Structure formats: C-alpha cells, structure tokens
C-alpha cells in the first residue's frame, strides 16, 4: 500500500470513527443497535448546511474562506449549532419512539426494527426538504499540499483529521475522568444497580443520545466537507460504522476510533488494490470476520 492510500484511508477512517463512537455508546447503554445513527449523521450535515448558508447570506464576511481552508467562519459556527440541534433531534426521537418502547420493556428486536423505521423517516424527510440533489458546503477549489513520501492532502482534510483526534480525546477524558462518565460506565455494566446506587439512569440515557448524536453531526459535517452532502450519506456509512464499533469492542471509545481508522484504511486499500466497486464489501468482510474470530472486538471484554 502506498503512503497516499494510507493517508486517504486515515482521513476517511477518522470520519467513520467519530460516527462509530456514537453507535458504540448507544449500544453499550441502551443495548440495541441503532440503525438510525447514520441518519443522525446526515441530518447533522444538512443542519450545518442550512445554518452556514443562512449565516453566509446574513453576513457575507462569514462565508469568506479562512486562511488555507475552503470555508469561512460560517461553517465551524454552523457545525457547533448543528451538533446541538442533532442532539435535540436524537432526544426527540427517543422521547417519541424508543422511550415508550423501553417503558413497555419491548424486546431488543422491536427496538432495532423501530430504529429502521426512524432511519427511513429521517432520510425521507431530508429528501423531502432538500431533494436528493447533492450539496456542498463550499465551491472553493483546494490544491493538495505535498507532505513528503509522496503524500498529498488538502488543508481541509488535515483539519478534519485534527478535529476528529481532538474530539476523540475529549470524549475519552469525559468517559474516564468525569462524574457523568463514571455514571455512563456504571449504567452500561448494570442499569438496575446504577439506580440503586443513586444514578438517575434516564438522565444518563439522555446524555448518551445527545453525545452520540453531536458526534454523528461532526462526522456528517466532515463527510460533507470532504465528499458531498446527500440524503443517502448516512445509509452508505452505516455498515462501516457498525463494523468499526464492533471491531473496536462495544463500549470502547478509543476502540471505536482505532477501528474506524482501520476500516477506513482497509476500504482505501481495497479501492486501490481491487477496485472501487468492492469498497462496500470491505466493511462487510471485516464485520463477518470479527464476529467469527473475535466477537468481543479489539478492546471488548468477552461476556
């Protein structure tokens, strides 16, 4: 594999990793695979698009590119606001759909099926509002910089890698050092005991939804900036997200990020060595292989 393929894989992988953190957190706390997570990612991308467009039209200066990057201040501001709105969207979906099902003690398969329904609804709403035409945050062209060893990357790509790295460190510190992180680990191990110990489990569940959705939004903005914004973008990323969260070990934030990078690099290598049409098969092969060989993932504990 040449260094350029590796770099491109890492860049795509950082996006997958951010999304996979949300999947792994909701899975470890709520104990079901949320198939709507990819659509939170797409919603995040579109919300940031709408907000940055509005900001740009209100104050033209905000749309002017910052330094070497292709976008103006309107995008980072919009990304932060969109992250908060995507968190709100996840809380709304939970209040309307998953919350009532949990109170009825529905089986896991019911929750999974409900998440499929939520995914379809969220995606169709995006198509209804924005059509299926692809959008971009910016029309600016960027020249890739030479990085040595034959590697080239645009400033946008390098920034996205950096942002992803910072977010992963922050989430990891939140989980391992803070009071809410300790509560999240407790609920993930034993929700009934957590209640007995004095943890408000419903508050922890809301925190996990908000955190997972905000990270999904950031992954969506990165995907939109580096590729394009389409209603299907979340669906296309779903398989890599699940492959990464299972490969990393359910509940492990560093695991999800590392596995995201592995899946990204594996996909880039597949495209380079086998052919672009095999990209989607790559995540699927990884998923099947982990489930057969090491179902607890890289950092997971065997049950």
């Amino acid at each position: 594999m040449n260094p350029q393929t590796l770099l491109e894989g890492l860049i795509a992988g950082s996006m997958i990793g951010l999304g996979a953190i949300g999947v792994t957190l909701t899975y470890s706390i709520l104990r079901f695979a949320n198939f709507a997570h990819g659509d939170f990612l797409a919603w995040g991308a579109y919300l940031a698009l709408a907000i940055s467009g509005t900001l740009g039209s209100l104050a033209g200066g905000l749309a002017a590119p910052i330094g070497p990057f292709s976008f103006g201040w309107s995008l980072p501001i919009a990304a932060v606001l969109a992250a908060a709105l995507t968190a709100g969207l996840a809380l709304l979906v939970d209040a309307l759909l998953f919350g009532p099902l949990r109170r009825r003690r529905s089986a896991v398969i019911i929750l999974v099926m409900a998440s499929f329904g939520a995914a379809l609804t969220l995606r169709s709403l995006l198509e209804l509002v924005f059509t299926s035409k692809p959008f971009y945050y910016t029309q600016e062209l960027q020249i890739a910089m030479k990085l040595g060893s034959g590697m080239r990357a645009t400033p946008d790509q390098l920034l996205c890698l950096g942002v992803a790295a910072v977010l992963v460190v922050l989430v990891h510190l939140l989980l391992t050092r803070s009071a809410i992180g300790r509560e999240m680990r407790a609920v993930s191990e034993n929700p009934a005991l957590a209640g007995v110990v004095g943890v408000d489990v419903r508050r922890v569940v809301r925190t996990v939804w908000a955190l997972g959705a905000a990270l999904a939004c950031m992954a969506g903005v990165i995907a939109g900036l580096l590729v394009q914004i389409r209603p299907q973008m979340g669906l296309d990323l779903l398989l890599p997200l699940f492959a990464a969260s299972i490969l990393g070990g359910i509940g492990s934030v560093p695991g999800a990020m590392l596995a995201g990078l592995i899946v990204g690099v594996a996909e880039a290598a597949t495209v380079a060595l086998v052919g672009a049409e095999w990209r989607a098969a790559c995540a699927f092969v990884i998923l099947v292989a982990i489930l057969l060989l090491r179902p607890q993932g890289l950092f997971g504990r065997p049950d």
Partner: protein
Amino acid sequence: MTPVLATEALVAGYEPDLAIVRGVDLAVRSGELLLLLGPNGAGKSTLVKAIAGLVPVHEGTVRLAGVEITAAPAHEKVRHGLAFVPQTENVFATLSIEDNLRLAAQVLAKPRRAGRIAALYAMFPDLAARPASRAGALSGGQRQMLAVARALVVEPSVLILDEPSVGLAPKIVGEVFERLRAINRAGVTTVLVEQNVRAALAIADRAAILVEGRIAHLGPAATLAGDPIVAELYLGARRATAQ
C-alpha cells in the same frame, strides 16, 4: 415512635397480574437489626426489592421516617436515606474500588464526598489498601464488603441486604455477619434477608418469617431460635394460611 421504615398492605410483583408479595405490614424500629426469613419463593427478595424500587408495587405504601416513598424511583430512594445491597452483582465489576465508592458519593453534596469515602476506607482497610483494583478482581468476601461500604457512603437511615452470605465460605460468612452486627450497633438500622438461619438469628434483634408473600410470624430473634413452630413455618411444611 414512628418506625424508620414501614410498609402497609404492600402488594408487589414483577408482572402486573402476579403478586408475589401479598399484603405485608412491616414496621422496622430505629436501630434494630431485623431478619427476614422464609422458604424459597416466599417473596423475601421481592419484598426488599419492592421497598428499594426495583420491583413494581401494585398496592400499599412504603414509608421512610414517615415520608411516603412508595412510587419514587430507586435513585431517589437512596437520597431519602434508603440503601440497598442486592444479592448478586452488587458492585460494578468493571469499575475500580475507588470509582464504585465515588459513584455512590455523587448523591452527597460535593464538600461531603471526600470525607465520607475516607471514613469508609478507615472502616474497611482491605479496600483502602487497593483503591485502584477493579471490583471484579476482588474475592467474594471483599466484594461483599465493597457492596456494604458502597451502601454506607450515603449514611443511610436504613440498610437493606439481600442474602449477603450467598456464595461465601462459612468462615467468611461469620466475618461478614460480625461486620454487619458492628455496623448495626454503630446506629444503622438494618434489614437482613437470609437463608443462613442460625448464624443470622444470632446477630438479629427481631425476625419475621415470610410465607407465601405474607408475614406468618414476627418476634424477638432469641425466642424464635428455640421455637419448634419456627422450623415448621420456616420449612413451609404446612401451609401457613388456609386458602
């Protein structure tokens, strides 16, 4: 005097149409160690879980120091001063000893937390010796002590333990019971569910016998220990209530 903990006509069970606890009136006196005995399936565990907020209450009330807490979720009952130690999986195995205690201390006001944890470490030197160890790596007896220490962090007015001797070696059971006795003598009202009748009667003030979801007998532990009817009721040889 108002009992510290009281249930009135308590009916509870996991399923809405299946009552396991069928009308229990129980008044726990301040400072006592009350033992709950009964044959398997009598509803001892369900009763204490319903009091702690882990099993739905169908009818009746639970009061703590006169305040009704029947419908409060488990995490709020802790704030009222009710501490519960479940029978199994009563510590967070993946968390360190320190994190188990800190998690419990989060219920307290911030300035009190460090002091309470230090006090518990002074009481349980075995735990203080290895605060960073994962609770899952502890021996059965140490785990049980961590579970008790965790429950005591909040300085509860009532400590409820569901069969703390399960799975422990006989020698360790003696140590655990001595610990519980000392904690009770230090002023913590205690409700103890046990199958280990003889050892438990030795440390209890009063004992209640639960049969088929109702209290069949309640009296001083000392007289109960020598009463032949107890064996009969406890073993459930004869149906306690004519249906």
